Each structure stands twice: as structure tokens, then as C-alpha cells.
């Protein structure tokens, strides 16, 4: 087999993936990290299947730069495909090697031995041998070749309870709960604006008011340190009484941006001037969106004089290790980053930033373990936020009611400023240590890797298209990857325009889409969601009630999802019901996939109706859950989800499938309810009132 998963090319040995040194258990190593999405449960299921053991025997380990295969970042809904694919092959080969070792020990042909939950049987009878007693006979340095077929799937497709969850709500389990003997608690005083200058710290005031708290300062980086967490917290709450900043005007200049990218499908200008054709132009936008994890970022670190060990909840521990080393002028080998579970992560949030925070303070205090905890306000506004962007669509409708030209111009802040991206450190405290660390170039993720601003900018329809994607680096607000990246707004724009064009053609929105759509799996999810919702031609609402539909294929190469939304609109928009149909190929863990789809739809509903990070004078002000509200229990839509499952089709990540179609279906439903279209997200009460009053 030549087509091995990428992870097996960089980490080929069986022993890099699993080991049997703990009697009765299998230590499973993955480079992917638990982000609250249940990935460790899914990967343990795959390993248990491959080895033919009970799920309870598999002990998945958190990723560790010293011990785990380097599988890059846990992003893009690829973990099941990449890490799962590797573990499936590694487990199958491990079981085969153990069975061969058993046959040798028993001196019988291979076909007379088998295994049952890790014990070896000869002709179906117990032998006293186990995977563990045989482990020493196997050469674990041998590469996984992909030649061995796995055990029959027994667990894949089932939904056992999450292996990590109960422990988390009845006790520890999060990085926030880790305690190292003698550790000091740290709060970072963040720069109030990009590259703000730390002018003065009144240490006498601090010593008088907060004797149990000390200060560590380096350039514009300022940390408060103390043995008691609440003592540090109290000192932090008085920061404006002892710290003076100036706003650093003139220090930050917009970075260069890479050249715009152009994507062409067919001859996009051919139909433009035909007789009887109609022209359509509209512009759609979304604001910056906060990640809004319920647990603010946290990290621990200790420096022993030689090596610096950092525990944090980063999506990319190997990338972070490299940038921490660079920032502190250490060798990469001197830094070890160990993943520990954080609260829900939906992209590049403060998890990497807090890792560097802890690293800086620990490095300056040799032998002293430290724990850094971010505030709610910093979590909402000082980590990177999801990028504001806009899309302008100009299209032509032929006399026959078909789209004959389509020109889309996307302009977006960066969706890609992860540690190391474009050659820059991209960590907030790196800029506090030296303003010269601020990135000087913004470039997009290449389209072949799914794109950033270009993600889903080419519509999955048959008409000719000309798409230009430009980056806008004019805002000092730090932006980066948030769940689905630009797919959220690009699909919102495309699917809103499809509805507007359907109106122009006097066609039903469902029929109009199907008229321009040949992708069979896209057609299947679209028609099935219409059936599920009881879509009736011409019955789309009005007078405060509306129904909308939308479809997309995530990244144009991932899973398919179609949505129907029912809304009610008076002074606010309420999403009453959502129907979702997803085709993500084979489902490894159906309950996990369902929670990604439903959870994603609820989060998207929240983005769509409520969320916008305020920007004042180019900076994000202090935020809390009142100034940045999200969807509440009382505002939930009722959701019905169906999967189209063909086990012949390989599994595709479903975690980012809903962000585009759900936003668009809601937008289309609101337009029907109002008889007027809101093209700028969010569809909030303020926006709605402004539009109604301007009539």
C-alpha cells in the first residue's frame, strides 16, 4: 500500500503509536489533542477495533512533544482522517505481529492462533499468553506498512460514553485543575492596545496594598505573581491604580499582504451582455467574532535550568514549542510542550498565547513552577478573534433564468496567524517583549490546504465563476482561525445571493439551486433536508415568519451539509427550528458526529443572531458576557438532524460543516420573514431596529 496517511510518513514505527508496558492496558499515542470534541474517544475506538480489545483497555495519552508522533495541528476537522487512519493501520499491524509471536511461542501455524480482548487462543482455547506477555517478542521499531487488514469493525459506528468527561465534572481533568507543588499563581497585565508601551509600575503602591504579590516586568510584558491565587486576582483588579500605559501610537504599522488570489471556473464573463439578462449586485459582511471558550486560557510551566516544560491546551504543541524557543532564544530541544485539556476550543484562541506567558515567567524564575490564568475579558478580546470580512457578488441572470456570470470579490482580515505562520511568532506576549516581533506579512492558507479567506469562496455550483480573494491588514485587531474560517461568511454570501437570484428569476429557492447543482451528494443532502422539513414550493413565510434553505460542501472537498431554518422576527430574530442533513461518509462515533453538528449549528445560530466583537479606535475594549452576549438555553432552536451514511465512503470530519449553511439558512429565512434582506451579520436586535427605522 503506497497511500499511507501523512502521520505514518513522519512517525512510521508501530511503537510510536502504541505500547503494552502497562499490564492489561494499551498506551495509545496520538499527536492530535482533545479540544472537547471527543477525539480521544474516537481514536481509542479505532485502536480497540484494530487490536480486537475492549475499549476500556485503551489509554489515550495527551500529546507531548517529547513522546507523541508529530501530527501537526488539530485543525480542519481532519483528526479522524489523519490520526485515525494511522492508528487503524498501526493497530491492525500490531495485532498481527502479536499473533505471529504467539504462533512462534506455541510452535503452531499462524491460522491456529487468534486473540480475544488481548488474550491469545489456540484452536479457540486459552493459552495463558496475552498481548502483554508477548509484547517483548515484537520489534516495535518496525514501520507500519499498511499491508495488514484490521479486525472487523465492532466499535466503529457505535457511541460509547466519552472516556474523559465524567471525571471532568466531578473533579479534575482540565489544565485549570493541575497543581504542581509550590507553584505560584500569575496574572498577566495585557497591553490595552496593540503594541502599547508600559510607562511605569508603581511597585511601592503594590507592596503596600498587596504585600503577597510581586511583579515581573520585561519591556512591555508585566506579570503579577503570588502564592495565593485570589491575592493575585485582587491585585490585578486594581491594576489601573499602579500601572501606566501609553497607547503606543505609531509603533504598529499594518503588515504587508500577499497578492490577491484569483480562482476561475469556466468563462465567467460570457453571459454578461446577453439580451434579456438581469444583473445582480450585493455585498455581505461579518464582524470579528470571539471564540468565547467558557474556561479562560490557562497554562503551567517550569524551567529547571536546562529545559523548559510548558503545559497548555494548544491545538499545535510542536509549532508552539518552536516559537517559544525562538522567543526565549532557546534550542527547540530545550522546550517541551505537553497538551492538557482546556475548555472547548473552536480554533486559534488564547491557548498558544497563554503557553508563552507561562514560559516567559517560568524562564525568569528558575526552579519555580508557575500557573497563568487569563481573565474573562482577555479571553474574549486579547486572544486572536475570528476575522471580519466581506464578500461582494455580481452576477448575471439569463433570460432563461439561469446564472450566466458570477463574479465574487472577498476581502478579509487574516484567518491564519497561528504560531510560526508566515515566518512570524504570532504570540501576543512576544510583541510585549519586543514590538519588532509583530508580524510584517499576512498571507492566506494555500487553497489546496483548504484556504483561509478563500475557503468555500468558489461556489459548489455549475455556473462559470471568477473569484478574487484579497487580504485586508488595516486593523490592528489580532485575527486568526475560528471554526470554518471564511467558509462561514463565504457560504452565507453565496447562499444568500442564490436566494436573491432565485427571486429575480421568479423561481423556488430549492428548485433554483438544484437547477445549478450537479454534485450528486450535494443534491442528496439538499433534497433530503427539504423532505425532512416538509419544504413546500412557494410557502416561505412573510409577516414575521420565514423559512430558508442553504447547502455547502465544506472546503469544497469535505463533508456536505444542507440546512432549513424557520424563524420568527419581531424586534429580535428567533430561530425556532433547524433541520440538518449531513453526509460525512462513514461515521466512526455517531453520537460524537451528532454533537459536532448540533453543537456547531447552535454556535452558528449564536454568531448569526448576536455576536460582534466591538472595536473602538481600532482596539477591542474590555469585554464580558453582557457586552458580548451568546445564545442562551431559552433561545435554542429545536433541531432535527439526519446523516446520509454510506459506509463505503471514507469518514470526513463534521466539526465545521454547519457554520456556512446554518448562517445562510437563517439569513434566507429572515429575509422571507421581513420581505427585506439583512446582508450584514449579525442579524442582531440593534441591526434589525436600525433597518426597520430607516424605512
Amino acid at each position: 500500500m503506497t497511500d499511507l496517511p501523512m502521520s505514518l510518513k513522519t512517525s512510521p514505527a508501530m511503537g510510536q503509536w502504541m505500547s503494552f508496558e502497562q499490564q492489561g492496558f494499551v498506551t495509545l499515542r496520538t499527536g492530535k489533542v482533545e479540544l472537547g470534541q471527543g477525539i480521544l474517544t474516537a481514536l481509542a475506538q479505532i485502536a480497540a477495533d484494530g487490536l480486537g480489545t475492549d475499549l476500556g483497555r485503551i489509554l489515550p495519552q495527551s500529546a507531548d512533544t517529547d513522546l507523541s508522533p508529530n501530527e501537526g495541528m488539530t485543525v480542519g476537522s481532519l483528526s479522524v482522517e489523519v490520526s485515525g487512519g494511522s492508528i487503524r493501520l498501526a493497530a491492525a499491524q500490531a495485532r498481527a505481529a502479536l499473533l505471529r509471536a504467539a504462533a512462534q511461542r506455541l510452535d503452531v501455524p499462524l491460522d491456529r492462533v487468534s486473540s480475544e480482548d488481548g488474550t491469545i487462543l489456540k484452536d479457540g482455547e486459552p493459552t495463558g499468553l496475552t498481548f502483554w506477555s508477548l509484547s517483548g517478542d515484537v520489534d516495535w521499531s518496525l514501520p507500519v506498512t499498511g499491508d495488514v487488514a484490521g479486525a472487523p469493525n465492532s466499535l466503529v459506528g457505535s457511541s460509547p460514553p466519552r472516556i474523559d468527561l465524567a471525571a471532568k465534572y466531578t473533579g479534575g481533568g482540565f489544565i485549570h485543575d493541575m497543581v504542581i507543588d509550590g507553584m505560584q499563581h500569575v496574572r498577566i497585565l495585557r497591553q490595552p492596545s496593540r503594541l502599547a508601551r508600559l510607562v511605569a509600575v508603581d511597585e511601592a503602591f503594590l507592596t503596600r496594598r498587596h504585600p503577597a504579590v510581586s511583579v515581573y516586568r520585561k519591556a512591555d510584558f508585566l506579570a503579577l505573581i503570588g502564592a495565593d491565587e485570589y491575592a493575585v486576582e485582587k491585585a490585578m483588579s486594581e491594576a489601573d491604580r499602579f500601572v501606566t500605559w501609553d497607547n503606543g501610537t505609531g509603533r504598529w504599522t499594518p503588515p504587508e499582504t500577499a497578492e490577491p488570489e484569483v480562482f476561475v471556473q469556466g468563462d465567467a464573463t460570457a453571459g454578461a451582455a446577453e439580451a434579456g439578462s438581469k444583473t445582480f449586485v450585493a455585498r455581505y459582511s461579518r464582524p470579528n467574532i470571539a471564540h468565547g471558550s467558557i474556561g479562560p486560557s490557562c497554562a503551567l510551566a517550569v524551567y529547571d535550568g536546562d529545559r523548559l516544560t510548558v503545559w497548555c491546551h494548544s491545538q499545535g504543541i510542536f509549532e508552539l514549542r518552536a516559537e517559544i524557543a525562538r522567543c526565549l532564544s532557546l534550542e527547540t530541544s530545550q522546550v517541551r510542550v505537553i497538551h492538557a485539556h482546556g475548555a472547548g476550543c473552536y480554533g486559534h484562541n488564547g491557548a498558544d498565547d497563554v503557553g508563552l506567558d507561562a514560559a516567559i515567567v517560568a524562564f525568569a524564575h528558575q526552579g519555580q513552577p508557575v500557573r497563568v490564568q487569563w481573565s474573562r475579558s482577555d479571553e474574549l478580546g486579547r486572544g486572536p478573534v475570528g476575522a471580519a470580512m466581506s464578500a461582494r457578488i455580481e452576477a448575471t441572470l439569463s433570460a432563461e433564468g439561469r446564472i450566466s456570470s458570477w463574479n465574487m470579490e472577498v476581502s478579509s482580515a487574516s484567518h491564519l496567524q497561528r504560531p510560526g505562520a508566515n515566518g512570524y511568532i504570532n504570540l501576543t506576549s512576544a510583541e510585549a517583549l519586543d514590538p519588532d516581533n509583530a508580524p510584517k506579512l499576512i498571507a492566506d492558507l494555500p487553497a489546496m490546504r483548504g484556504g483561509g479567506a478563500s475557503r468555500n469562496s468558489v461556489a459548489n455550483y455549475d455556473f462559470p465563476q471568477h473569484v478574487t480573494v484579497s487580504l485586508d491588514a488595516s486593523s490592528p485587531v489580532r485575527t486568526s482561525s475560528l471554526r470554518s474560517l471564511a467558509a462561514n461568511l463565504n457560504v452565507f454570501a453565496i447562499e444568500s445571493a442564490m436566494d436573491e437570484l432565485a427571486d429575480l428569476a421568479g423561481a423556488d429557492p430549492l428548485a433554483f439551486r438544484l437547477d445549478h447543482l450537479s454534485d450528486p451528494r450535494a443534491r442528496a443532502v439538499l433534497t433530503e433536508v427539504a423532505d425532512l422539513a416538509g419544504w413546500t414550493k412557494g410557502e416561505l413565510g412573510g409577516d414575521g415568519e420565514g423559512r430558508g434553505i442553504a447547502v455547502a460542501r465544506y472546503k469544497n472537498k469535505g463533508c456536505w451539509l444542507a440546512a432549513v431554518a424557520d424563524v420568527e422576527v419581531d424586534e429580535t430574530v428567533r430561530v425556532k427550528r433547524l433541520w440538518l442533513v449531513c453526509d460525512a461518509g462513514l461515521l466512526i462515533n455517531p453520537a460524537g458526529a451528532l454533537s459536532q453538528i448540533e453543537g456547531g449549528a447552535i454556535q452558528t445560530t449564536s454568531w448569526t443572531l448576536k455576536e460582534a466583537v466591538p472595536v473602538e479606535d481600532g482596539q477591542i475594549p474590555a469585554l464580558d458576557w453582557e457586552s458580548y452576549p451568546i445564545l442562551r438555553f431559552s433561545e435554542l432552536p429545536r433541531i432535527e438532524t439526519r446523516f446520509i451514511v454510506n459506509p463505503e465512503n471514507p469518514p470526513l470530519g463534521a466539526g465545521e460543516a454547519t457554520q456556512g449553511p446554518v448562517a445562510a439558512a437563517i439569513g434566507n429565512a429572515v429575509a422571507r420573514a421581513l420581505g427585506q434582506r439583512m446582508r450584514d451579520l449579525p442579524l442582531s436586535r440593534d441591526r434589525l431596529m436600525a433597518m426597520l427605522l430607516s424605512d
Partner: protein
Amino acid sequence: MISFTLNGKTVQVDRSGDDPLLYALRSDLGRMATRFGCGQEQCGACVVLVSGTPRYSCTLPLSDVEDATVATADGLADNRIGTALIHAFEAENAGQCGFCLSGILMRATALLTEHPAPTDDQIAEALDDHLCRCGAHPGIIKGISRAARTLSEGAR
């Protein structure tokens, strides 16, 4: 020294009575199930029961619980309602990242104590001061509803 009953056992804490209960639980007593989410009574991650009533431990002065009874999610498995909730949440795969759950489960304990058979709307209303970012709300509601059914079957 401030003493109170925590999950059925008497505990003593040497800390200012003005400090929030949350820090006594986590820093002094090592009970980690109660979590810091905002420090402003806005998210519900830190909710505990004081004499059966849900309270925000991130702002509640420690002196307010002197000699009172405090229940946290660390002690869920020690009581009938908590055990039913844990089993029901596992059965429904309720929750995604889990950070909001300990506060939600304490709120649910109070709800089921007072209303043994809540409707889904009543559950949603009871949880309205709790934020969940993963969108795990439907499973959480199902989990609480399932626990209520289990408890009523057991009581019969």
C-alpha cells in the same frame, strides 16, 4: 478559621471571610470540580449549592457559608440525584467539553429536588443563567430529563 459542611463533611478554611468561596474550594480544599469562568456571576461555571440553593461561588463571600451546608459537583456521586444525573449524562452523551457541566449539574440537582418531573422548557428556563459555548444544550436537557425519569421510577 471558617468552618462549613462540604459534601457532607465538616471542613475548615484559614482565609479571609471576604474572599470568594471559589478560592477556598479550589486553593485551600483542593476541590477542583467548581470552576472559574468569568468571576462576574455571568456564566454559571462556578455554581454550587449553599443550603440547597444555587449560588455563584466566584463572588460569594466565604463568611456567608460559615456553618452552612455546601454541595459541589465533587460530591455528585455521593447522592441519589447526582448519581442519576451522572448516569443519565453518560447515557445521553450529554456535554461536549464539559467545562460548564459542574455548575449546570448543581443547578440541575436543585431543580430536581424541587421539581421531580420538569418539562424540557422548565429545564431550559432553570439553566438560562448558565452559558455553554459548545452548543451541547440539547444533550444537557435530555440528560436532566432522563435523570428525572430514572429517579421517579426508582421512587415508585
